[in-house]
């Protein structure tokens, strides 16, 4: 990157001590970004159009306002996909972005799911060794609609990437978000869902494998606004070598969100003593009749688990490798669409072969 600036992203909604350096992240942004060339498949039953940034602005993303400003100023068009009321799309909308060596790209997507519709989106990000890319996806999920977003990140070892997601759910709507992050030198992920409609649901499952000098910065926010809204956040990862990860997970149970339930669970397997793992779980509560739960399991393998597996003749190192694979596989196995699940598994096998 010849010329670049930094913008502040992934701000914690309720800041903690400044000296911890966890309240936000600095995202490098190159001076010139061009629209990446996505390969789109299975767009039937959807209407696709090109729009300006107006609708995007109405839905906040997890990475924050400075990113919105940068995206709007970039002048890059917004690709909108719209699914009509009551339509259940059988095959997933497939958006694949493969970035060439040294490419500096930005893509903006708007997804609008009308009342009672059903849509699965599969986003596949891959690249050559080095470059920079960003993606912003904003979703409006209307009453009773259901959207599943699955993204796989398998980027080059010197690649910097960000993905900002913002969603707003209507009454009884569901947003299911699944991220499988396999590689990339520096990654920023922001996910914010405003559960505005009564009884709407948000589920997020993130699985990541970080190695060498890789860095991952996540800001996940579930805002419970409507009554009886539900959120579930599961983050499951493996850190090895000198990897760094910062996970911020906020469940905000706002006034009026009576009967809302938010759960977040984080598990991290630390393969070496040289990794850096930071976690900021936050549950904010401004309503009495709500439930917010947080759990975390961070560290080495449980001693009983290790004994059980070693008692079958497996060396300690092999058990750790197996458990590291198991963590990411568990997130992949949660993909309900069999075809997509198998596709992601094939990526995993390829990653393994390349590692050998």
């Amino acid at each position: 990157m010849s010329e670049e600036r930094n913008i502040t992203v992934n701000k914690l909604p309720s800041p903690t001590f400044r000296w911890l350096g966890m309240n936000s992240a600095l995202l490098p942004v190159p001076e010139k970004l061009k629209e990446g060339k996505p390969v789109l498949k299975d767009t039937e039953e959807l209407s696709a159009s090109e729009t300006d940034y107006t609708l995007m602005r109405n839905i906040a993303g997890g990475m924050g306002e400075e990113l919105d400003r940068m995206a709007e100023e970039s002048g890059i068009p917004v690709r909108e996909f719209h699914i009509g009321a009551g339509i259940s799309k059988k095959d997933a909308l497939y958006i694949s972005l493969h970035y060439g060596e040294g490419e500096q790209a930005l893509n903006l997507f708007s997804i609008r799911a009308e009342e009672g519709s059903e849509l699965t989106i599969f986003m596949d990000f891959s690249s050559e060794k080095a470059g920079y890319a960003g993606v912003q996806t904003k979703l409006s999920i209307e009453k009773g609609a259901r959207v599943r977003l699955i993204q796989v990140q398998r980027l080059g070892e010197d690649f910097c990437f960000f993905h900002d997601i913002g969603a707003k759910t209507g009454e009884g709507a569901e947003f299911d978000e699944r991220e499988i992050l396999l590689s990339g030198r520096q990654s920023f992920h922001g996910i914010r869902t405003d559960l505005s409609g009564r009884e709407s649901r948000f589920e997020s499952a993130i699985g990541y494998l970080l190695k060498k000098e890789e860095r991952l910065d996540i800001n996940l926010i579930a805002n419970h606004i409507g009554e009886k809204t539900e959120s579930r956040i599961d983050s499951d990862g493996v850190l090895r070598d000198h990897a760094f990860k910062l996970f911020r997970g906020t469940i905000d149970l706002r006034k009026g969100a009576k009967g809302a339930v938010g759960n977040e669970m984080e598990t991290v397997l630390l393969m070496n003593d040289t990794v850096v793992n930071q976690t900021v779980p936050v549950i904010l509560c401004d309503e009495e009749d709500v439930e917010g739960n947080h759990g975390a399991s961070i560290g080495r393998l449980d001693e009983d688990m290790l004994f059980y597996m070693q008692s079958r003749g497996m060396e300690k190192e092999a058990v750790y490798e197996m458990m590291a694979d198991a963590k990411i596989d568990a997130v992949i196995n949660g993909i309900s669409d069999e075809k997509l699940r198998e596709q992601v598994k094939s990526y995993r096998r390829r990653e393994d072969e390349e590692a050998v």
Partner: protein
Amino acid sequence: MADLLNVKDLCVSVEEKGILHGINLSVKRGETHVLMGPNGAGKSTLGNAIMGNPRYTVESGKILFEGEDITEEAVDKRARRGIYLSFQNPLEVPGVTLGNFIRSAMEQRSGKRIRLWDFKKEMKKALELLHMDPSYAERDLNVGFSGGEKKKAEILQLLMLKPALAILDETDSGLDVDAVRTVSEGVEEYQKSMDGALIIITHATRILESLKVDRTHIIVNGRMEDEGDASLVDRINQEGFERYMTPVSKV
């Protein structure tokens, strides 16, 4: 014939509390030994100590396997020598399928890649013997398994890993009549076709019905109080452990 396992004057503690006090036990290849005793006597402790569970500390004494001292050896090395422990409460391992787990363990034990075709064939045979649906191989290890399914999965691993010595820690507890029959068929197969030695920790006798028992040992309060042939099992079933209990231990 030389001893396969030889436990000499073994004293074991857990969290600084002495559990076993000078246990001696010799098992020859292909022999079946039954270990009985009241709750809390130290039966599972002995099984765990032989397997090398780091939660159990050997204070004194020795464990020899095929004549070699393994008292200080790591769990996985003991397993690769041919010691197997069937767990009373097998752990759930999300993300690792039963099939993959067994295959990886087999490869680690042999140090060789195992052809998928050969593995599947052998696995199918073992699954059939235990009346388990082939889909179990694709399921995450013990995740969502019933108590009986977990115990069957332990015996499945025993049949696939083919150790020289298997310690079955209450493998029959909590199982219905049919499940006990299936599990004992699996154990019988191990005993006969692999000339496997067994240490069976049990409270019941149903699992022993089809097995030829060579020796029976009674542990009470961490000490071997009695030893005998298969008839001792029947006597315990009729009389209980009363005669071995001191007035203090009865309380």
